[in-house]
């Protein structure tokens, strides 16, 4: 079946079998491998993307359910040269190690700051509770989000 989504501002489509998840559509059909397959059952958050502004597990959404909707993946937050303020802070704090959780974690953090520009540490922990990280213990991830908030909470998307 034909599925059309607006992903990172561009209209993209593919003809996929109905059982295709949004995650598979993004990774295999659209070449957007930023969202990762960590567990495939919505436990780890490595596949987190925004759909109409809300963070969801792309592995638990059928591509068909995303038809006609707006999707933001990690690739849509910036290009390699100019980072969003949120990403700048993750770089400054060296928040990530292996990096596998990073795309999902950053998308969840962006969703939090879009909704609540002045979160408490408890708010950040709750917002990121659906994103698992095995390397870092989360401390510098939380610090980076709090620092962005302290500096005004601005998150700029690529124009």
């Amino acid at each position, binding site marked *: 079946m034909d599925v059309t989504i607006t992903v990172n501002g561009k209209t993209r489509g593919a003809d996929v079998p109905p*059982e295709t998840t949004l995650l598979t559509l993004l*990774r*295999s059909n659209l070449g*957007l*491998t*930023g*969202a*990762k*397959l*960590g*567990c*495939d*059952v919505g436990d*780890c958050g*490595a596949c987190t993307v925004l759909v109409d502004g809300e963070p969801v597990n792309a592995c638990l959404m059928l591509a068909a359910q995303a038809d006609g909707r707006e999707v933001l*993946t*990690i*690739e849509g*937050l*910036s*290009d*390699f040269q100019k*980072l969003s303020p949120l*990403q700048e802070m*993750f*770089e*400054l*704090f*060296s*928040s*990530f190690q*292996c*990096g*596998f*959780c*990073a*795309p999902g974690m*950053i998308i969840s953090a962006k969703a939090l700051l879009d909704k609540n520009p002045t979160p*408490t*540490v408890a708010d950040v922990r709750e917002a990121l509770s659906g994103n*698992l*990280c*095995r*390397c870092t213990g989360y*401390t*510098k991830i939380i*610090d980076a989000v*709090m*620092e962005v*908030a*302290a*500096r005004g909470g601005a998150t700029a998307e690529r124009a």
Partner: protein
Amino acid sequence: MVIKVDDALRTDRLAELKEADATAVPAVAREGGRAPQIVPDANKQTPAVGQRVTRPDSRPHITGQTRYIDDLSFPNMLHMKILRSRYAHARIASIDVSEAEKMPGVVATLTGKEIPVNSFGPSYQDQPVLADEKVRHMGDGIVAVAAETEQQAQDALARIKVEYEPLPLVLDPLEAMKEDSPKIHGDSNIYATKVIRKGDVEKALAGADLVMEGRFSTQMVEHVPMEPHATIALWEPDGRVKILSSLGRITLGRADVARTLDLPVNRIQIVGTIVGGNFGGKNEITTEPVLALLARKAGRPVKGVFTRKDEFVSSTTRHPFIMDYKTGVMRDGRIVARKVRIVADGGAYCSWSETTLGKGAILSVGPYRIDHLEVRAYAVYTNKTTCGAMRGFGAPQVCFGYESHMDDIARELGIDPLEIRLRNVFDEGSSSPTGQVLHSVAVKESLDTVADRVGWREQAE
């Protein structure tokens, strides 16, 4: 007791940073943020020591540009799935893949018989690449299928017929040590032993004011790297196989693939890429030889990625340890003798058990000046997930053992737990259990510093 972290610690560091370069310090985060870091311009020459630098991998990670193995794809690539054992211990009577091979999209299958040298392992090569005669835990792979799509490969697994003759299980390592226990390999389930002796432990125990005993056990732990094991194999026109893998030890892996495929090492190219978490669990080959052989059979690249279930059932884990401690102490808290027996539950195959056992044995006595000691450590097979390398290699387990034991001793003698450690801990020039003379020993200073910072002695009053 409540341990309070001194906020002054954080403020001092911040003041330091502010002095160093006021303009470089970012705003301090509110609500408990940690001290910010100075990040020098990567284009300027700076002395490295004492500096904080940005990680070069931050940028690709945070922009989603990093390519892990599963992000890679080759034209015409096939997908592999592995049929794993239904039983934790069984003989394999027969394997019939004929129905599976007829399934839509299936291009090739592989069984253990087709693997030139069907055994591997970092110390003992006791593990089959694909189980052929016997399965020893439910993570054992038996048949691999390469198909056009993952789902087609998965569907084909259901058509594979394996006849098993179930064997009695042994899941408890202490049971597994007994003469009459079901045997998993060969004649004995005890496959590695380490003994350390120093002085005369029995005599010293006899002369102690008090002898304390305790048993401490730890559980099996799975690394759960965020990235599941992933591998792609393809054959190049020059006759070499190129294997891209999440494997952490590619030189070792290359030797293992050469050995299992019975090919010269110079025919094997292993490409290690960014790994999404290892922690020891990606320290040996898993499906690399399987993918290489499937790719050769199919004439196409083949990719295999572990499911999260595979990660728990088939990939290696941390050894559970059962530790029996017997310590002779004097009334003033001085340890005069220590005996330790360690049983390391190794699961179905050896993997990194020897290293784990050795390290665990050496460290099991603890960082304490003990002249008379004996450690007996055994690695034991059970019909459970193979235990291998995991950060610490036996150290975390024994640390739990000797420190819990020390607290028990302190309580029994009525001595402050910090005090008893200060009385026994290593000094400059102390000798390790295996006779290594230790230098740059700062244990006492470290303990005292922590005690000051958390106000240990004040709170004890």
